[in-house]
């Protein structure tokens, strides 16, 4: 049990706890907060996976933009005042399905004998290589991704913006 492992288990525990909070918290705002927690923990996991770059992206994009966005949305949709419970009637089925899937996925993860470099070692990926690849090897995805962002932008403006004569 190396210290990395210790760290991993801690982080993982936090992440799982956060996730649990997200999906179980009675109060919606709390689950938002739990989400932040979970995301941060996951960022830490990235670090453990020797991808600091992604960790940073994660913190910036999620810790910043996404959660703020979500909180705004909650505020605007006055989630608090929504009548009725937070969870739907099909919760037990949900639990069952999730459990079933979890078992399957875990078994798969353990049963599979993953091919690759035998040294159980996370190789550090050089950021330059990534950047380089993004613009050369992965040019199409990159450009399309930009289109996706534009679409999302236009879409959300068109849909969200209030028209004249609308309260």
């Amino acid at each position, binding site marked *: 049990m190396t210290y990395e492992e210790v760290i991993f288990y801690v982080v993982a525990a936090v992440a799982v706890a956060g996730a649990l909070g997200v*999906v179980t918290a009675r109060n919606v705002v709390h689950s938002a907060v739990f989400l932040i927690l979970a995301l941060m923990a996951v960022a830490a996991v990235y670090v453990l996976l020797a991808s600091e770059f992604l960790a940073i992206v994660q913190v910036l994009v*999620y810790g910043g933009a996404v959660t703020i966005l979500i909180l705004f*949305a909650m505020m605007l949709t006055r989630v608090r005042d929504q009548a009725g419970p937070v969870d739907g009637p099909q919760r037990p089925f949900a639990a069952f399905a999730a459990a079933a899937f*979890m078992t399957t*996925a875990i078994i798969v993860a353990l049963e599979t004998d993953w091919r*690759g470099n035998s040294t159980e070692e996370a190789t550090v990926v050089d950021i330059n290589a990534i950047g380089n690849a993004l613009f050369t090897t992965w040019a199409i995805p990159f450009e399309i991704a930009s289109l996706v962002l534009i679409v999302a932008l236009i879409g959300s403006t068109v849909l969200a913006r209030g028209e004249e004569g609308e309260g």
Partner: protein
Amino acid sequence: MIPIENFLVLSAVLFSLGMYGVLARRNAVLILMSVELMLQAVVINFISFAVYLHPEAFTGVIFAVFVIVIAAAEVGLALAIVLRVFRNRQISNVDEADLMKW
């Protein structure tokens, strides 16, 4: 060093929790958050595969990047739609939005 299985199991757990959230929650925003969790799990998968198994091409890492980007965009767009629904009908609970059925 940490064996890859740990990360995979972690992602499996996160993914399932997210799935549970999607299935169990009523509020659109909460469902979105759960989806985000699932995507996180996916990202963990990709990265761990990349760095442990196939570092030479690190396709997984690239994939992860794009997934994060898409996820962010998704949230934005989805929230816009949720907002639109709320404006028109004062609801954000998805199971109340069943004008159309059968």
